[in-house]
């Protein structure tokens, strides 16, 4: 999951820069991801990992960094797999 989550975000987020140059803590919105693109990220991650983000996670804070998205997906993926 480690690398593929970056690929999913990269494909959906329409970033202005190469995702490889971003750390897990860099701000995706500052890297050019719009609100509408963050919705694409949400839908792509749900599709890729067969998960559904609960309403409490549909915030900018969750979608701001690769790290926070990875934590959210891990939590939901763990629940789905359990």
């Amino acid at each position: 999951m480690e690398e593929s989550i970056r690929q999913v975000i990269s494909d959906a987020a329409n970033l202005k820069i190469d995702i490889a140059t971003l750390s897990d803590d860099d701000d995706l919105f500052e890297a050019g991801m719009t609100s509408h693109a963050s919705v694409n990220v949400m839908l792509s991650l749900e599709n890729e990992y067969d998960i559904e983000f609960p309403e409490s996670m549909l915030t900018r804070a969750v979608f701001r960094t690769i790290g926070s998205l990875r934590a959210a997906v891990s939590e939901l993926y763990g629940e789905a797999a359990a």
Partner: protein
Amino acid sequence: MTIPAEDTTFLEELVAAGLLVPTGVSGVMGRSGTFEHVLLGFDALVDRSTAADGAEVVRFPPIIPTAQLERSGYLASFPHLAGSVFSFSGSEAEAIDLATRVAGGADWSDLQTQTDVMVTPAACYPVYPWVAAAGALPPGGRLVDISGACFRHEPSTDPARMQSFRMHELVRLAARDEVLDWHAGWIDRGGELLASVGLATEIVPASDPFFGRVGRMLASSQREQNLKLERVFPIAAEKPTPIMSLNYHQDHFGLDFEIRTSDGEVAHSACLAFGLERVTLALFREHGLDTETWPDGVRGLLGL
């Protein structure tokens, strides 16, 4: 679609006083001459109080080319509110079939085909393609005054939530900092304008009624960035009703319609909107249903 239950007392009073005329469809109301006089009085007050701003005035009909609304992203965000115009373009036999079905109370919707226009959902939508067509913005950007009828498919018994209503807007298109300055200036200025006719409003952060789960994500994002502010006044619903909104679009429309500043950057935009029926209803709520008894100062400002 479920129709939210509201306190219908005020609506019944407005109808009994002849100010609003029910049509049999929720949220589709006729307005009396007195109602219209007040509404146009406030509309003119907005014109007078912004005259020195030098806005370019433009008016569009209450329908918009489908292609323009598609380009704005409206259908991705608000598919449930959008109204598309359909008409008949079939054969003579189909026309007879249609008339027979109408007369017999049967469904005739499959004999309709989509036209290339939709019903305008907010007065400012036609402004962006119009501005874009003129090329890059001049130094200092542009300020546009637009007013017109708008449609939202949201049947309701709240008299302040009509399906068809008018909106008077100012739209600022410029570089980011210029747009933000203009936007910030209207937070108090809008409140002062409404207070001048006796409407004490509160300014609150708000979000648009985006559709579905995707919409909740967009709404949360809009609130967190403080992109939408509303001035609210208690009219008839449980919560105070927005009668003015102030929206900072960032570079959303600049990107969608390829609008550039004089420096070649993607333009930012913001709009200020007064809901004219809502302001009028707020005035009747505040000052009573008989305009003869309204305070002289308010009557004077509204030209009553």
